């Protein structure tokens, strides 16, 4: 006890033999060395203790963030699973043509507003850029509609002139269909498109998020593909009832399809974001725990070394007196 108290108040290093090999193997050695006279090297325990305190706080914070993400995930996950049936009828009717050749394609990138969620936003942005490259060519142009701060930050850096609309703070209120359909309406009104490609992370499980792209075609392109045969060839066999013209119904259909697919995409991305945040915070707490263990070992070794030093001094002093 007395040794610990003395050690805390010590400033000048005492002379002691260089048998403290433990100190040299410490991970924090170079920067926090106190070099005493005759080249003695050891680390001040105060520094190690401060570091341990901050690492412990970080561990607590990341653990709490993981709990929060887990509870948010539970809330969104049930909604997402219920909305999965929404896009299936449209794909059953209109098929899925990601490789359709169009003049104007618009890439809708869905990302999160907050960070610390692993690599999902960078993956979405990379895929969006890939699709942009895929659809570039003579007479073809690709524009972006960005949802979420993180994708905005990344895309504004090099594709600023290609961005048509930026929408942020999507998750301020709980996600619901009305909000998303208003959003879809805005996009449809302001952006001209032949094909809309929605890029998002589909939620498979808490550890796996699959980047996905859903394609929604404008009614003119649907007509064109139906006439030319191929995958949409049997669309002509469908009788279209109601409305003045077939075109009007197809227009409504395309808009409805877009809002439904957007709703599912936004929910899946929100789920993926919470899941990714959970695993990021989990690995972060684990790393903090590992670091804390290593620091504790260093701390104990340093403490024991300094106690040993003191004892040696005392004993050698005493034996010198006895002479």
């Amino acid at each position, binding site marked *: 006890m007395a040794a610990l108290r003395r050690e805390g108040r010590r400033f000048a290093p005492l002379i002691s033999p260089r048998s403290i090999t433990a100190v040299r193997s410490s991970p924090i050695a170079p920067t926090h060395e106190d070099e005493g006279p005759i080249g003695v090297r050891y680390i001040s325990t105060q520094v190690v203790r401060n570091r341990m305190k901050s690492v412990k706080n970080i561990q607590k914070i990341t653990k709490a963030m993981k709990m929060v993400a887990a509870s948010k995930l539970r809330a969104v996950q049930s909604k997402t699973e219920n909305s999965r049936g929404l896009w299936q009828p449209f794909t059953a*009717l209109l098929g899925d043509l990601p490789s359709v050749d169009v003049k104007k394609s618009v890439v809708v990138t869905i990302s999160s507003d907050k960070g610390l969620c692993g690599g999902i936003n960078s993956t979405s942005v990379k895929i969006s850029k890939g699709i942009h490259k895929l659809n570039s060519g003579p007479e073809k142009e690709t524009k972006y509609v960005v949802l979420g701060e993180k994708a905005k930050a990344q895309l504004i850096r090099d594709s600023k002139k290609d961005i048509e609309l930026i929408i942020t703070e999507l998750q301020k209120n709980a996600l619901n269909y009305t909000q998303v359909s208003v959003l879809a309406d805005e996009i449809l009104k302001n952006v001209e498109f032949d094909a809309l490609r929605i890029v998002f992370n589909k939620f*498979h499980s808490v550890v*796996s998020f699959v980047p996905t792209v859903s394609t929604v075609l404008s009614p003119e392109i649907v007509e064109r593909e139906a006439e030319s045969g191929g995958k949409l060839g049997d669309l002509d066999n469908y009788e279209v009832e*109601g409305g003045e013209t077939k075109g009007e119904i197809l227009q409504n259909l395309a808009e*409805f399809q877009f809002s439904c697919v957007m709703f599912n995409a936004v929910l899946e991305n929100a789920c993926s974001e919470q899941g990714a945040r959970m695993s990021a915070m989990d690995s972060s707490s684990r790393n903090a725990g590992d670091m804390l263990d290593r620091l504790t070992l260093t701390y104990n070794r340093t403490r024991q070394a300094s106690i040993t030093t003191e004892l040696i001094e005392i004993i050698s002093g005493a034996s010198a007196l006895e002479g």
Partner: protein
Amino acid sequence: MLRRAMGLLARPVAAARARSFSTDLPAAQTADSTFVEAWNKVMPNMDPPKTPLSFMQPRPATPSSIPSKLTVNFVLPYASELTTKEVDMVIVPATTGQMGVLPGHVATITELKPGVLSVHKGNETTKYFISSGFVFIHANSFADIIAVEAVPLDQIDANLVQKGLAEFTQKLSSATTDLEKAEAQIGIDVHSALNSALTG
């Protein structure tokens, strides 16, 4: 660095695991091959993104004879009310009037107006009030009904319907702009449909 390693680990695991999830079964055609090829040419270092085709439940082909039952999928944004339920008949409120759908109905795409959807199976009938949507009837006797809102009829309060109708009629008479008139008209349409649903 650790995060990217985790991401790299997750993707092959996901690709291997994707088959075994019961919620998303692969279809017979799991990916659009032209898309995958074009992607690999442009971005050889990244896996191509998945498309909805890989997550679709496969649909059966058109049978040669008319099947005895109609398979109905009734979906809403926040729930799937009926998934592949085999019924005898459904009556949908199309914009052109009530339309009955039996097995073997010709393939149709119809828009719906606010009204009553009734599902007949054997002797029992379930009625829902839906607020517009679409119905796709496929040649293989599959019917997809997509609505924005649906409530079973017994959950509708008649007093609130009357009040709403009166409110919107009053709004229509006091409406100035076209937008307000259209909104009031929609309100009146929905409430009068609700009214007739309750009485009829």
